């Protein structure tokens, strides 16, 4: 359900904080495959999948236990991990990101997998900012869709401009 992305890095890591922070800083859309090192010796199929939306870990799924959401994070196990990070177009993740059962709260990956409360707080702040941005944008679009309100503003300004023309000595500049 998630197409292959472009591999950005693949390495063994003893701590996930730097990788998660890097994803946040570059506002990555994509996903990570996380396998405990010992799993590499086993089937190789026992790994966690974490997706990122604008750098924020959004979904978690564990291929071994077939569990999603916060339980999947618990299933991933302890470091060191084989960590692979992939970039993917945001649109490709739009549908999976609507799967409520797989979603994890913002900051959950940083807190539970990396044990990094500070990074988790940064992630939550970024999400809050993003929410502000979106609600501001929605407000602007709603305003611009209200043709009557926009028209009122323009008419009032035009009336003001004409009324003041005489007072200010701009009459000769007035458009006929």
């Amino acid at each position: 359900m998630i197409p292959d992305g472009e591999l950005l890095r693949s390495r063994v890591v003893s701590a996930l904080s730097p990788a998660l922070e890097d994803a946040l800083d570059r506002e990555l859309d994509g996903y990570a495959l996380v396998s405990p090192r010992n799993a590499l010796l086993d089937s190789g199929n026992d790994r966690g999948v974490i997706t990122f939306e604008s750098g924020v870990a959004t979904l978690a799924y564990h291929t071994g236990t077939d569990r999603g959401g916060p339980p999947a994070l618990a299933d991933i196990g302890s470091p060191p991990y084989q960590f692979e990070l992939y970039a993917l177009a945001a649109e490709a993740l739009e549908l999976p990101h609507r799967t409520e059962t797989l979603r994890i709260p913002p900051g959950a990956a940083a807190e539970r997998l990396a044990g990094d409360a500070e990074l988790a707080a940064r992630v939550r702040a970024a999400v809050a900012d993003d929410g502000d941005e979106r609600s501001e944008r929605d407000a602007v679009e709603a305003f611009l869709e209200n043709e009557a309100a926009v028209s009122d503003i323009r008419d009032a300004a035009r009336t003001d401009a004409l009324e003041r023309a005489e007072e200010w000595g701009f009459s000769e500049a007035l458009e006929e």
Partner: protein
Amino acid sequence: MVEAFAVASGKGGTGKTTSTMALGMALAERYDVTVVDADTGMANLLFHAGLADVETTLHDVLVEGGVPVEAATYDRFGMSVVPCGTSLAAFESVEPDRLRDVVAELAADTDVLLLDSPATLNSKSAVLPIVLADRVVVVLNPTVPAISDGLKVQEYALSYGSDIAGTVFNRVRGDITGVKAKAERYFEGPTLASVPESDAIQAARSAGVPLLDHAPESPAAAAFRTAAGRLSPNDGDHEDVAERFRTAVIPDPP
């Protein structure tokens, strides 16, 4: 050729002076550009142009028996820059109508005049730059108050016979494709650019230099260059334009 642009927003904090300096620097690559701080009540341009310490400003030109405008014109960043001072006393003795003559004089000797306009429409002197300009660049932020005030600026400009060169969306965070498309239904002229919010802008301001000097490779600087490229200043005869500024707009006092 000469064309006068007012850079206006109707609301403070939109990044109007940053935009004026950035458009000026970008246009200066091809044209002879003069930038004037036409916001005599709240001088700001001098802080963006490394001119905070100069002694002679536009205020000294606009007072009765003032100095010639050349004395308040500084070569900075490839442009001629005419800043205002910050002294309230100087501002109070300024005669704003004299701006018309100053603009006429500057127009005789430049290709592009950029008038950094006051962020309000509540007085004659605040509206004068919009009246004097051939075209107005409306600086917007993607917020309801900034767009409402931008619409008011546009109506004033059109009422007084000035055209709209286009809009610049400044301080943009995230994707505003929808906002731009909807705004374009109401604004004359194209969206000249969408300038992303950037730490580089604040850093340039702190350093007292224009964005295009401080961070020429930044995405915000690139967006301003795009906007400047879309302005394509019109050909106009220096003398005609100068004469128009002197006579056409404001009747002589009785």
